């Protein structure tokens, strides 16, 4: 059964312990940062910062809303990054995580072009190239950094004091999300981000403001693949695309515009 995480943005208090917990578990060093007006440094994910919480101020009439949005690899059900990976380093596991084998990564960075969430980052590899770095959903086939393979929640979920993160089977999380929306009329926009977007993602979001205002992309799966493909030679890209996705284009699930 594929796993997922339900991120309830109405509960997040913006404490960012998820950010530190990720570094604490994965042995990731601190960045050197400077003042950021919105208090949410690092200002972007990096090779050593796989998740970050971005702060949004949303003005609604006289009222200001302050919302905190944790972002990381969404572990798409049909990951564009995996689709465009030329080396086979990136794989989608049956349990949900999209992971990569650093030894295979050739540093082509196509995955960056393909990812609609802009998540892949790169670090220097052993042979002068670059190697992909991103959230691996605390799943590690090598065992060193494995949590979910050992039945534990990801480090960020484990740390969250606000109860904003819930780890479990994706279909049960969807059920839980629907139940929360139903139980609190007006408390949420009637939309679960990631249920269908990009063909569905393992990480799912609930919010009380429009996902458009929180920087979530509403694009199709194929647009990501296409973006990566523009960097290939036309012939190679065409052959690869036809061989891999013949007949599927018609079924592509485009990102649904939110129902809110």
């Amino acid at each position, binding site marked *: 059964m594929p796993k997922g995480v339900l991120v309830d943005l109405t509960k997040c208090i913006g*404490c960012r312990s998820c950010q530190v917990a990720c570094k604490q578990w994965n042995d*990731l*060093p601190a960045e050197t940062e400077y003042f950021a007006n919105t208090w949410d440094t690092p200002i972007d994910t990096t090779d050593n910062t796989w998740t970050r919480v971005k702060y949004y101020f949303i003005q609604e009439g006289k009222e200001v809303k302050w919302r905190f949005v944790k972002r990381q690899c969404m572990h798409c059900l049909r990951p564009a990054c995996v689709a465009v990976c030329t080396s086979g380093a990136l794989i989608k596991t049956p349990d949900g995580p999209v992971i990569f084998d650093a030894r295979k990564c050739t540093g082509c960075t196509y995955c960056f072009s393909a990812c609609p969430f802009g998540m892949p980052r790169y670090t220097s590899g052993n042979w002068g190239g670059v190697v992909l770095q991103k959230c691996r959903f605390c799943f590690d086939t090598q065992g060193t*950094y494995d949590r979910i393979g*050992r039945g534990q929640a*990801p480090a960020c979920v484990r740390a969250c004091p606000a109860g904003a993160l819930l780890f479990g089977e994706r279909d049960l999380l969807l059920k839980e999300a629907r139940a929360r929306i139903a139980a609190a009329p007006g408390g949420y926009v009637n939309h679960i981000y990631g249920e269908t977007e990009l063909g569905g993602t393992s990480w799912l979001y609930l919010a009380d403001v429009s996902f458009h205002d929180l920087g979530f992309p509403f694009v199709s799966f194929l647009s990501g693949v296409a973006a990566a493909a523009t960097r290939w030679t036309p012939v190679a890209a065409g052959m690869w695309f036809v061989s891999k996705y013949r007949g599927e284009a018609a079924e592509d699930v485009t990102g649904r515009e939110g129902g809110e």
Partner: protein
Amino acid sequence: MDKVNRREFLKYLGLGMAALALLDEAELATALPAAEKSTTPAAPASYKLRRAKETRSICPYCGCGCGIILFSEGNRVVYVEGDPDHPINEGTACPKGIALSDVNTVVNRSRKRTASSARFTKVLYRRPGGQYWEEKDWDWALREIAKRVKKTRDSTFEEKDENGVVVNRTQAIAHLGSASLDNEENYLLHKMLRGLGVINIDHHARL
């Protein structure tokens, strides 16, 4: 549920049962994969915490009093997480709590854990007009401090005040203590200071 199972259960859910309030009990049971209900699989040789020692502590920052588990190998802290048995924080922690290892052990650019280079770990002395610290040993420092305490106390000692009341005090020594020290430490310090006749005593609670 016994202790071990409850702990693994919480780890899996991440949040404790209250978070899943909207799922009924049957669903909750199925939310747990079979493996988690019994035991966690044996850790592979490469597992991050395979050789780590677990120690229970209380967070030294705000007044919440959260339970913290420190995982250490030798004298390096290799991981920190909230104590899942602790009724206040239930396994969670804020960013300061999670980052507790930084005070002793930091992760360097090569993603290796090394001793914090910012810690001051030596007894130091700065002489009058000096422009740098000099390294000293404990015996020297304690002896020299003791001499200064005695000299200051003895030269400013008030045995009786102007009304002839025995006051046994010095006003020339002051102590600003700390709300970060343990109870037993604060107790000994207070006792020592009163023993010496110090009345200028204060700490964070005033501020």
